[in-house]
């Protein structure tokens, strides 16, 4: 009996622990899964300016994060890599409708784009999307059904084809189908696709976020791979938002706002750029312009008419992606 009592007391103490600590000098940032190093650096810089505070980090796929927040994960702010996952929070009443207006640049402090990583020396001479449908080129990217990263790839390739074929739907579909035919293996996530490309040595080009290519080169050695930026790509936003329901409960709105504001300061932007993300702040963008060659970016809004439409026409059941993927 005593043992149970002790366990009960221990449990109660552990329960009470987090409650007492939830004064508004603490922040929880729910973020995407490969942003650990970026936010470790951002948080350190933010805390150096704001002593006495602390920022906790939660990292996972952002769909999982959004679901966890709806089920009670008390994240004050979200820093995601998918707009649709913040929309899920809006639908459930955790984030306000006009969150995109709360911060500059559609509430996206930095951005990236689907970009190419080829083997050192670029033996196949891959320069642009049109090279990816050549018969002698094998392309690696994950399964768009399970990976947000690959959805961007799919959309970027479609956007390129729409321009190249002046909106001829049949030709666009043919192009994207050809691209998919050149993929020897669809992994479930970006990390697995990277392993397939670099460690298993399959394929001639890996398509992933430009921001990712930096850490891949760092992990596997920059003598093995090199980055190729296509002529045109799709703007991939990294949206941030305050989770209203949580900050109102915890009284942490000011803190949450100042944290997200920090990401827009010169210092916050420089750290983002150092971790491979493109930034809007002109001075910092100029500072890193060698690292980020110019590229023309199109947006989901301009090409596809917004994420809702993309979801319906491309990713939903019976959508274009299913048709193309199913034809394999």
């Amino acid at each position, binding site marked *: 009996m005593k043992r149970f009592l002790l366990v009960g007391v*221990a449990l109660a103490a552990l329960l009470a622990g987090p409650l007492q600590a939830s004064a508004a000098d603490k922040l929880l940032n729910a973020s995407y*899964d490969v942003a650990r190093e970026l936010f470790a650096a951002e948080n350190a810089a933010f805390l150096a300016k704001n002593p006495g505070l602390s920022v906790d980090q*939660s990292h996972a796929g952002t769909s999982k994060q959004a679901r966890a927040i*709806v089920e*009670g994960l008390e994240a004050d702010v979200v820093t995601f890599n998918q707009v649709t996952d913040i929309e899920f929070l809006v639908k459930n009443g955790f984030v306000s409708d006009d969150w995109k207006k709360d911060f500059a640049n559609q509430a996206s402090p930095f951005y990236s784009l689907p970009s190419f990583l080829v083997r050192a020396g670029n033996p196949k001479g891959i320069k642009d999307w049109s090279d990816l449908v050549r018969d002698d080129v094998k392309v690696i990217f994950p399964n768009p059904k399970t990976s947000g990263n690959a959805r961007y790839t799919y959309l970027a390739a479609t956007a390129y084809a729409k321009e190249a074929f002046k909106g001829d739907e049949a030709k666009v579909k043919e192009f994207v189908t050809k691209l998919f035919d050149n993929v020897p293996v669809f992994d479930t996530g970006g990390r697995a696709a990277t392993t397939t490309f670099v460690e298993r040595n399959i394929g001639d080009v890996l398509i992933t976020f430009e921001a990712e290519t930096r*850490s891949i080169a760092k992990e596997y050695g920059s003598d093995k791979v090199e980055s190729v930026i296509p002529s045109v790509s799709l703007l991939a936003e990294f949206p941030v938002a305050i989770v209203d329901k949580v900050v109102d409960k915890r009284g942490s709105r000011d803190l949450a706002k100042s944290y997200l504001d920090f990401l827009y300061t010169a210092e916050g932007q420089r750290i983002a750029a150092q971790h491979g993300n493109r930034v809007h702040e002109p001075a910092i963008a100029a500072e890193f312009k060698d690292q980020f060659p110019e590229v023309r970016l199109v947006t989901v809004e301009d090409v596809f008419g917004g994420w809702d439409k993309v979801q319906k026409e491309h990713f939903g059941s019976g959508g274009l992606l299913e048709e193309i993927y199913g034809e394999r």
Partner: protein
Amino acid sequence: MSAPVKGRPPRVGDAPAFRRALIGVVLTLVAIVIIAPLVIIGYQAFSQGLKVYAEAIAHPDTLHAIGLTVITALIAVPINTAFGVAAAWAITKFDFWGRRFLLVVIEIPFSISPIVAGVAYLFVYGLQGLFGPALESADIKILFALPGIVLASMFVTAPFVARELIPLMQAQGRDLEEAATSLGASGWRTFFFVTLPNIRWALLYGVVLCNARVMGEFGAVSVVSGNIRGQTNTLPLHIELLYHDYQTSGAFAAASILALLAVVTLVAKVLLERHGAGRARRRPALAAPVAAAKTASAEVSS
């Protein structure tokens, strides 16, 4: 069968070639399936040198993950052990309505995928779930905190102890306990001096399995953890995170710690077994209560 070898119908395993082939296949499979991955973990963990390994382990997040995993095991394993013993005792020593049903229910976690368990906990304790709003208004945090992690681990490992004990206790029957009771021993006394000595190895084995699984559980915990670094990231979750972060050496360093925890558990079990077995041989007195009870029961029944 002392018939001469000649003329005897051939039996499986007679031919030396077959024996060798069978042993060869088993050893090869063990090497490929079990040994090779373990060796790779060790190799990868130290591939960048001892210093990188030590730094990876000493990282506060990794240390916390180790601590959280150990705390989870320290809470979940004793509770599940008590539950397992109680359940096995109830099922094998008593007759009651719903006994068979209980037997089936206890085994459910074996056949359910852990991820289903995790999602089920979301539906019960989540904000949109059954008890979520009530817990929220009482300001009690279950999910995305330690209690959720412990609960999920307990669900997954609930059958381990009971499953080890039930077949043994069924085989041993109720005679000894009935005898002890008839001689005036209290319930606790009967348990500690009659039942426990008979089931201790099965119990120990169940505890070891339960512990190993609690420490290694990924699926269910992944759903209810919230993945907060330095707060709710258990060691298996931390390993996945490091791996996805291109921190290969860090991931393998953490994996080596998890593997080490498992090995320590197993070694502890082997040592205990040896120690216990030796004691039993040297001091037959330990077996005496059983013998005494047996005689007593014989006397009672005659």
